[in-house]
């Protein structure tokens, strides 16, 4: 599934009647099976672009296509991991993971037994075996993130759109989950079998660790500053982080964002 973002502009109406421009003439593409990360300072339109790819909002101008077809709404080919996970609090882990299969078109062709098998397998895949019957409020942040991820994997959209999924976690959990994410995504698999991922983060080291390519965005209004290819070898792990090339890339991107981030922090 290739996604093409072409000259997308987005204006939002503000409560006081005026308009704010979130994105200006933004263009980039995402190739099939690629892990693309979008980094940028706050307010550069990262979430807006993701929501547009998800089909939850429409561009004011420009087009977003998937495999050549324009995106006109949400669909089961594009799964979203929201910033706060959006787990259904009234359903258990099992209930959340199986939600799309039970109530959506994805599970229509499956019978009860097949669904149950898929759910169990997915829960095991993300490392949550034993917690099937727990409710979200009983889970830690890291566990909730895994449930949200499992929910996507269970019905298997071709494209995964992830909005700062690890932002709310502590640094240690975050590091662990970055590797978990790559494992589940299939970094050990041949490229053809991987899903397409578009991932948003603030953390540059996270971006470099995960990505095949990084879209560096800037503010005022949101636009693409640079596109950086990450040529670090896969599979990635602890060794990657101490690779000199890793630090080079981090510094290169940081120097681009630095001024804007500084301005935002002292505004």
């Amino acid at each position, binding site marked *: 599934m290739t996604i093409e973002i072409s000259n997308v502009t987005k204006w939002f109406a503000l409560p006081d009647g005026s308009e704010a421009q979130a994105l200006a003439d933004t263009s980039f593409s995402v190739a099939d099976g690629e892990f693309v990360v979008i980094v940028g300072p706050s307010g550069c339109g990262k979430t807006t672009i993701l929501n547009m790819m*998800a089909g939850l909002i429409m561009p004011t101008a420009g087009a977003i296509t998937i495999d050549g077809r324009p995106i006109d709404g949400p669909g*089961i080919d594009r799964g979203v991991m929201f910033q706060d996970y959006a787990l*259904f609090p*009234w359903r258990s882990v099992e209930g959340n993971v199986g*939600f*799309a299969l039970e*109530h*959506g078109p994805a599970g229509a062709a499956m019978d009860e037994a097949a669904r149950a098998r898929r759910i169990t397998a997915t829960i095991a895949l993300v490392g949550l075996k034993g917690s099937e019957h727990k409710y979200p409020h009983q889970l830690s942040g890291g566990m909730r993130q895994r449930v949200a991820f499992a929910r996507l994997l269970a019905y298997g959209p071709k494209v995964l759109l992830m909005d700062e999924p690890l932002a709310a976690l502590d640094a240690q959990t975050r590091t662990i989950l970055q590797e978990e994410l790559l494992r589940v995504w299939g970094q050990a698999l041949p490229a053809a079998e991987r899903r397409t991922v578009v991932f948003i983060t603030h953390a540059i080291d996270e971006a470099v660790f995960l990505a095949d390519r990084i879209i560096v965005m800037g503010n005022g209004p949101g636009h693409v500053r640079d596109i950086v290819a990450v040529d670090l070898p896969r599979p990635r792990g602890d060794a990657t982080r101490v690779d000199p090339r890793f630090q080079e890339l981090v510094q290169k991107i940081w120097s681009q964002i630095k001024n804007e981030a500084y301005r935002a922090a002292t505004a």
Partner: protein
Amino acid sequence: MGGLLIPLALPAVLVASWQALGEAFGGVRMPLPSRVVVEGVALFASGELPSAMLQSLGRVFSGFLIAAVLAIPLGILMGTVRVVERNLDPLVESFRPVAAIALLPMAILWLGTGTPAAVMLVAYAAFFPILVNTIAGAKSVDRNLVNAAATMGLAPRAILRNVILPGAVPQIAVGLRVGLGIAWTAIVAAELAVGAKSGGGGSGGIGQMMFVFYAYSIELSRIVVCMAAVGVVSLTLDWLVRRGTRRLLKWKAT
């Protein structure tokens, strides 16, 4: 023992004073705690009190059920689809301040002084708290949950049933509690008013029984027995709703 002493102190003092002052200064009709207890036992044993209570309760549950069946789906719809809410809101806001009891004469005109009118009034009274709370509950559902379901391919109706409705349940439960309390007050009021207007005949139920005791009985302690019964039922109903909805809400973080 000491822990029980303080809470019981004031009620005990008040009851004792009531008994003493009533015996000394009250007339022959004066209700007294001692007589309240005696009459209470008698009314229970004779079956009069239980049957009146059951009659009132039957009306309350019927009216309450009707109100819930109407208000919850409508509330979900109004809380989710802005157009529906905007257009129906004038009607809701115009009728809500009209206390159910004000409609009693109309209800009697249309349905007579019996159970149908009582049920209609209870349904009307309970309808608004349930509706208002259901709307609030539907609105309170996190937009991201709706979005998540949309990206999973659910059609709008499926989203209403599987996301909005379960998400609104805590607030709906509040509405049901308030609604049931209002329903109980409404039925007592309606039965009382009908009893008063028709000179004691017709409606049945505990409200009417209270009025009959007032109008025709020498033993006014019976009124106090009824009042106590009203209070006990009120507490029990509230407890029932809370127990009933607690199971539905076990997913809520305490």
